[in-house]
């Protein structure tokens, strides 16, 4: 398993992403209306899908933590939030760049874009909260509650294009898209999935190591109390 994470998964990621993006940039035809600009789809859409998936993993891990407390689920929730925020932010940036030539603006207060921005702010808040709370148990419980509240926005983001009149197009299906566009999108999406899993595994290992260090050596952690801090430094000396 460790060998697969170290060598197999990076190779699979590079292979699938490289192949998918090559198909999207060189093999797929230009769009009837958007021309070559539409090729942004092969990076923007997989990024958004993986952001939603990572944030859903964060939600499941948070619920699991509240039902059965374990540092593993807490570490998984933290890693999924960070990875989801990375993919979501990149999805938003690439979407804004795509919006400029097609809509004429980088940003519009459209339901999809606004709900996505709120989602990113919520997950940024989640990670900030985790930085501010020093007690690992309190941090895990409070952040799990925030994760569950934040996840309410996930279906709102997904269905916003159907529920409200949106500048953003509704989800396409393979039936409505040229097969030569479906293949690169699928390959790039699987490549992005492999990358998301790779990032998640490495980030999870970091988070779990931090939790175990915190629990094993609570006195080694920095404290806000000056008296305790002085006592700690004298111990070290």
């Amino acid at each position, binding site marked *: 398993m460790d060998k697969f994470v170290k060598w197999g998964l990076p190779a699979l990621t590079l292979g699938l992403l490289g192949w998918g993006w090559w198909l999207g940039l060189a093999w797929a035809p230009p769009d009837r209306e958007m*021309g070559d600009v539409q090729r942004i789809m092969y990076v923007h859409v997989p990024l958004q899908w993986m952001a939603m998936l990572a944030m859903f993993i964060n939600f499941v891990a948070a619920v699991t933590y509240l039902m059965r407390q374990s540092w593993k689920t807490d570490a998984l929730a933290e890693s999924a939030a960070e990875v989801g925020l990375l993919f979501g932010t990149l999805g938003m940036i690439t979407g804004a760049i795509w919006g400029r030539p097609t809509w004429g603006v980088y940003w519009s207060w459209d339901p999809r874009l606004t709900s996505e921005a709120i989602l990113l702010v919520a997950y940024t808040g989640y990670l900030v909260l985790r930085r501010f709370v020093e007690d690992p148990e309190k941090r895990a419980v409070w952040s799990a509650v925030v994760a569950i509240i934040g996840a309410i926005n996930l279906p709102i983001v997904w269905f916003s294009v159907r529920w409200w009149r949106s500048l953003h197009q509704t989800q396409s299906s393979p039936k409505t898209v040229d097969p030569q566009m479906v293949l690169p999108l699928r390959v790039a999406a699987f490549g992005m999935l492999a990358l998301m899993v790779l990032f998640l595994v490495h980030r999870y290992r970091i988070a779990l190591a931090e939790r175990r260090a915190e629990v094993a050596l609570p006195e080694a952690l920095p404290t806000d109390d000056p008296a305790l801090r002085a006592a700690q430094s004298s111990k070290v000396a």
Partner: protein
Amino acid sequence: MIALTSLTSVSSLMVLAQASSVGSGRLVGGWGYVGACYGITVAAFVLYSVSLWARRPRAASDSKE
């Protein structure tokens, strides 16, 4: 009457000229936007990979010392 016909012809030509400059209704070019999207994404992934590498758990190497 001749003047009116000439005016109509001129306006028709102007419409045709506009149509030819618009093209077939498809966005032309835009490779800069495409390159920016892929470039920013790859750069962010590389930076994040470096950050994961920098934060990696070092318990195994410490225990050897």
